[in-house]
């Protein structure tokens, strides 16, 4: 035994437990807020994915209202979504990195982390289990009481019961140490802004002080659900490419008894024993129905020319495709043999494919979005690879070259935005109208664009007057339908808003102005782990600027119309005040009795263009 100390592997839950502030669980204030976010966002994600108009009910209650903050709170979130199948519940909430949103599409949650971290935090601070109720069919509801085994990254089910129900959906309830006195404003802000960007949802919040916040649905249509898509060439790095190659390539299966049983099963030979030739003939007949693994074993057998009995007494040591040699160990003779493989046979081709992976062209066209054959061939030329180069044979240097070239190749089509789920101009407008009751509103959804291979869409709305209090421009920032509430200082949206010269758009002083900005992307370039501000990528900045300029021009034309109307009113009032006086004074001066008939002039006065 080495005396240098021991190497321990820690489980993912252990890791996140030790680094919980990374995930937003650093103190009671932040943790309460983050936990609310995680559960509400899970509920909305689940409904979105199933096309269900969400009803989400959040409640926070102090366990002992008399105690001063920080203190234990019970946080519950209930939704009308699809629920989680009974057998997945413990894993979804009792394991980190277990989730259904890993695919490349837009969602609020990302890493199968959020809910479990909140539960983990609750358990650490209060030592109470989590309660989950879930129904996927609207008939039966599974009710779980779970705690987490942090070391093992495993849930322990304390109780599991079923009950009759009439609705699908999930509700979750945890007990956690929180500070509502400090976090309250943030949480209320979060609920308010979430409802603004989710006008198709009803969100309610019962707070610990007994206040009730209700935001009911404003629209009844949901934006189309995003689809999962393959990555764009600009959006992958060497690591991702390696993983993709790994997925596409099969290693040579070990030919053990287990494998031999599988081959027998697929060939329908479990009860029947055939000699080598008969086996090969049967395999040929059934080729199209055989699985890839089995085909590889058959190919190996074709070079070994052995039946199953003989096969079980050897071990394959090496298959060298380029030198066409196959080496095996014969247990019976206790000796190593090397045989030649005939490169002309189909079996040889089968092996090559398996070991060396597919060709570069096929890899590009099949594994990436929007890459056709012609583009793939042009790319191969650009990168200095043969189109039929097997990706499995690439050295590390070649992989780096491939990755670099993917970034540099200029003519890939722009990324497919079908994986994005913007809210849409109309619901955004309706939401803003309901929230601000403005005198003027305009919204825009820009076309899809991309930065570093990640597609994104910018939506923006501007509202003026009405219920909006004066005091300057208020910016509501959203990313993937999540409100970004803090760390405003260095955000790209604010930068773009600040750069605008409002006086050019006839907006003066501290206007009653609201800007709502929503960026959707498969990857939002957050500046910090806190995920509260978006970094300034030139592509994103440009889209934001174009959107804001468009809206500002609309605002300007509204403002000048409004200015004219105000001017007219002012005119009318002025003439109404002064013309009678002029009439009165000149009547006495002129020594007349009756005042001149000036009334008709009042009307005319209003229509006179302002003379300067």
């Amino acid at each position, binding site marked *: 035994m080495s005396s240098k100390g021991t190497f321990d592997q820690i489980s993912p839950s252990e890791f996140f437990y030790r680094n919980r502030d990374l995930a937003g669980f650093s103190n009671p204030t932040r943790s309460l807020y983050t936990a609310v976010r995680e559960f509400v966002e899970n509920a909305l994600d689940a409904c979105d994915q199933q096309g269900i108009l969400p009803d989400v009910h959040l409640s926070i209650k102090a366990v002992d209202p008399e105690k001063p903050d920080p203190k234990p709170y019970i946080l519950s979130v209930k939704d009308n979504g699809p629920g989680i199948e009974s057998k997945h519940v413990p894993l979804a909430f009792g394991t980190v990195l277990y989730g259904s949103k890993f695919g490349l599409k837009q969602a609020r949650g990302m890493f199968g982390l959020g809910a479990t971290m909140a539960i983990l935090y609750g358990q650490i601070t209060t030592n109470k289990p989590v309660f989950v109720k879930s129904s996927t069919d609207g008939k039966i509801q599974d009710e779980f009481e779970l705690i987490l085994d942090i070391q093992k990254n495993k849930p322990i089910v304390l109780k599991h019961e079923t009950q009759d129900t009439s609705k699908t959906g999930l509700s979750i309830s945890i007990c956690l140490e929180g500070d509502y006195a400090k976090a309250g404003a943030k949480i209320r802000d979060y609920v308010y802004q979430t409802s603004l960007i989710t006008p198709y949802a009803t969100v309610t919040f019962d707070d610990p002080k007994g206040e009730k916040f209700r935001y009911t649905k404003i629209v009844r249509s949901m934006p189309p659900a995003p689809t999962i898509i393959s990555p764009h060439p600009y959006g992958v790095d060497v690591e991702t490419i390696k993983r993709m190659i790994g997925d596409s390539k099969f290693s040579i299966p070990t030919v053990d008894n287990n494998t031999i049983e599988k081959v027998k099963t697929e060939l329908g030979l479990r009860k029947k024993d055939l000699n080598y030739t008969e086996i090969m003939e049967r395999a040929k007949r059934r080729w199209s129905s055989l699985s890839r693994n089995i085909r590889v074993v058959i190919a190996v057998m074709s070079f070994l020319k052995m039946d199953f009995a003989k096969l079980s007494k050897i071990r394959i040591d090496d298959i060298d495709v380029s030198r066409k040699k196959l080496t095996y160990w014969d247990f019976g003779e206790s000796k190593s043999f090397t045989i030649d493989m005939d490169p002309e046979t189909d079996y040889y081709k089968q092996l090559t494919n398996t070991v060396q992976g597919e060709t570069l062209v096929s890899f590009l066209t099949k594994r990436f979005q929007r890459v056709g054959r012609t583009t793939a061939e042009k790319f191969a030329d650009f990168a200095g690879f043969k189109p039929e180069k097997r990706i499995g044979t690439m050295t590390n240097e070649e992989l780096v070259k491939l990755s670099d070239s993917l970034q540099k190749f200029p003519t890939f089509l722009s990324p497919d935005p079908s994986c994005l789920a913007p809210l849409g101009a109309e619901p955004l407008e309706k939401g803003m109208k309901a929230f601000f009751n403005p005198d003027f509103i305009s919204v825009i959804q820009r076309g899809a664009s991309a930065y570093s291979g990640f597609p994104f869409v910018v939506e923006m709305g501007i509202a003026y007057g009405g219920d909006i209090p004066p005091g300057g421009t208020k910016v509501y920032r959203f990313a993937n339908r999540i409100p970004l509430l803090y760390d405003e200082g260095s955000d790209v949206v604010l930068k773009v808003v600040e750069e605008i010269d409002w006086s050019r758009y006839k907006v003066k002083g501290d206007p009653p102005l609201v800007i709502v900005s929503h960026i959707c992307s498969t990857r939002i370039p957050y500046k910090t782990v806190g995920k509260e501000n978006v970094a300034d990528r030139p592509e994103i900045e440009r889209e934001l600027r174009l959107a804001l300029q468009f809206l500002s021009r609309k605002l300007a034309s509204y403002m000048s119309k409004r200015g004219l109307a105000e001017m007219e009113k*002012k*005119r009318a009032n*002025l*003439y109404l*005040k*002064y*013309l009678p*006086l*002029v*009439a009165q*004074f*000149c*009547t*006495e*001066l*002129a*020594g*007349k009795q009756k005042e*001149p*008939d*000036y009334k*008709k*002039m009042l009307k*005319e*006065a209003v229509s*006179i263009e*302002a*003379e*300067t």
Partner: protein
Amino acid sequence: MKPKPKTPPKKSTEERRKSLAQLLKNKGTEIYEDLEKGKFPSFSVPSRSVSNIVYDTKLRQYVLGSSVSLRSTRNMSQLRSFTQLMWLAFFANRLVNEKKSSTLRDIYYSSQAFAVDFEDQPESDNIIVDLEAVLTRPREDLHIFPEERSSVFGDLTIEYTVPGYEGKRSNLSDHPDGYLIGPSLSSCELVDTSAELVIAIEKGGLFTRFVEEKVDKKFKAIIVDTAGQAPRSTRYLLKRLHDEMGLPVVILTDGDVYGEHIAMVIKSGSANAAHLRELTVPDAKWLGVWASDIEKYKLPTIPMTESDIKRITDLQKDPRYQEGNWKKQLEIFLKLKRKAELEAFSKYGLTNITDKYLPEKLELAKSL
């Protein structure tokens, strides 16, 4: 030695009043008819901007040039000031008809009774000057007076026209403190005088001394205290004494640049009143104290301040100071950089100024 009365202007106060009333009525009628016709009325107001103030060498005073600005009710931004102007004409008309007088400050407050608001007194003062320019009549004709008053003393019989005193006469030598030059003196008729000269003097102290020393008798003079820069009513009275009674006017001031300019304003007006033509006495003569007198009479002096010197260089650009004694005295002041007050003569005894300086200067004035 009494110069012949200047030809026309024995226009009685009553006549002036009547012509003004007619003028006001005409303006009112014009505007009344505009309104009847549905036309937006307007006033032409002679522009009082610096570029429109020019020196008229023939009239020997500053006058307004030809540029006028239209104050029209069509223009929303002028509507308020048009109404203010209109109100002022209306209010002045009442003052004139009712023979009542008011001060600049009164005007500012009176407006409030008519829902015509002035931001502050400078705004109403400004409208008053506009109306003066429109009518080419000084505000005193409109019975509007500034608060500052100066005085007059001497053998001059006047007849009041103010209500309650109509037809009543007074002799301005009856009261040793002199008579305030107020609304009633501004509107009185000048009946008779034995005086042959008007002495305008800058300072109240010297005015009293002159009365005590019987300068009025010794020199057959009417003495006027201008109390510094002569108010318009005082200049108007000086003009009437000269024009209607045929009296020459001489001026005594401190020996500094301000004194010299007090004399100049009596003689040829101020840029501020370029819109008016009845406030100057072009024949008036400045007796002193000149800069050259300071050395000649060995007067005690005080040093000039920065602003005294600045004032000299400013006036050197004024066309009226481009020649003769006016120019020469400025140059000497600038060289001396010292000034002397009228009281400086007291160094030689309190009566030195009346016994010696005045006669010498009057004698000299004949050749000016």
